[in-house]
């Protein structure tokens, strides 16, 4: 949905988006990293409809994603780190599954 301004100096790092390795600039937040690839980041817990980052300032909570195994992290408030695993959430968290893995 978004792209980096051409010519922006940047170092790329590898993160995993839904288990797929992708290269992203090292100085952006997780919400921005998602928006480089997708307009959506989760399906809601109430109706299962798709949502994407919306306010980018931590107020709307629409950018909830799973980061390194932790559910419901506000993507727009966390910087990317090399090796970070980001997962799109579908519906509510499954606690029993989380325990087994």
């Amino acid at each position: 949905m978004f792209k980096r301004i051409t010519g922006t100096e940047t170092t790329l790092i590898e993160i995993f988006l839904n288990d797929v390795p992708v290269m992203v600039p090292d100085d952006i937040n997780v919400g921005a990293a998602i928006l480089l690839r997708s307009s959506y980041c989760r399906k809601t817990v109430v109706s299962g409809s798709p949502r994407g980052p919306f306010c980018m300032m931590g107020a709307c909570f629409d950018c909830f994603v799973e980061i390194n195994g932790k559910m419901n992290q506000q993507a727009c408030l966390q910087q990317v780190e090399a090796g970070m695993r980001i997962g799109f959430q579908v519906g509510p968290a499954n606690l029993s599954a989380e325990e087994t893995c």
Partner: protein
Amino acid sequence: MERYPLVVIGAGPAGMAAASVAAEYDLEVLLLDDQASPGGQIYRNVSRASADLRSEILGREYYEGLTQVDEFLRSKINYSPASTVWDIDTERHVCYLRNNRSYQVSAEHLILACGSQERPMPFPGWDLPGVMMAGAAQILLKSQAMLPASEPVLAGSGPLLLLLAAQYLNAGLRVQGIVDTTPKSRYLESIRYLPGAMTAPRPLFKGLSLLKQIRNAGIPLYRGASNLLASGDSQVRQLSFHCAGKRHRIDTQIVLPHQGVVPQLQLVKLAGCELTYLHRQQSWSATVDKYGEGSVENTYIAGDGQQINGAELAVIAGKMSGLQVLRKLEKIDLSTFERRVKPLIKAKNKIEKARRFIDAIFRPSEELNTPSDDTMICRCEEITAGAVREIAKLGCQGPNQVKAFGRCGMGPCQGRFCESTVAALIAEVQDRCISEVGYYRVRPPIKPITLGQLGNAVIES
């Protein structure tokens, strides 16, 4: 529990100014901010953004923030970035999360400089991926150097839309159009504030020059638009709207709505401070005295929390609160206080007077306050305007009972994006004034905290 004579929350223009002035007189200040670097939303990332981005794309006003940020970073302040405040009580105990741990500090004086957020702008389809607040898109530009990957449509009202369209032009990106929902009647209503606006005319001239830049670039401006509808399956594909007697349809992947900003009052409410409804700005704001002190003693609200007045006045308000704290703590004497406060008050009055024009012309349209029944107004719990109207018909007197009856406002955003709409809908159904309908009581934590973190919270009873 650690104690500080002054805790400031927020590192935007107001918070930085308050902390800097206090540090000038060696007051021990803790400043908590949830962002990784200072500047707030207005100067977000200004210390890190590249020089090209700052000067050529974002413009002079943004660049000016750098001076303040530099001064702030040089001051002797205990600055704690990436620190999310999740609770405050009426005795000024502040709980915050940093690096996944919860801490609690006690503040003798507390300055809340939590700024503003974009005013919710509900219309059918605003929940679709690809629809994002225009301010959010601007944050992406400032802090991440990112542009829409395809030509967006801007919709709503307020100076930010023009500014963003111009900044995109500077960066070589055209917007497909600006769908301006400012009702035509606003122009007439605002004329009487025009002389006032001329006392501090910079914003006015700035607006006119942006408009000229946009016109020259040939970007369509749809004035007096209404009945917005974003459609698409899993992603927005089209924005349609009424304008000049007909339905327009623009195919687009990105819609950026905006209709001004409103104070962020979660912490103000938690701190027990009273609010006043400001009809002029169609929003609640903290009830404060001349120096920003709220209804709870030693708790101050600086910047947009007082009322939306922009960065320049936020700095003044921050300084005034900081100086008042210094005076109360006897770090400065009365004459120093008066000497420093006097010019600030003068500047404040001038800017406030000029602000009336912007308030009048960009007062949100009635339609967007009380949207059609099928519009989702609570994005978290997915509650429609129609459902809220049904509940209001039962006689619920305010947002809190409506929330209890219908879950609206119960999600993680705690009503940040539905509060004003719910109140407007109750007022509409019951034919009452919005100011007597009231607002949500806020519940901690205002930012999610895990049960594990809460259970291990550093608490001193």
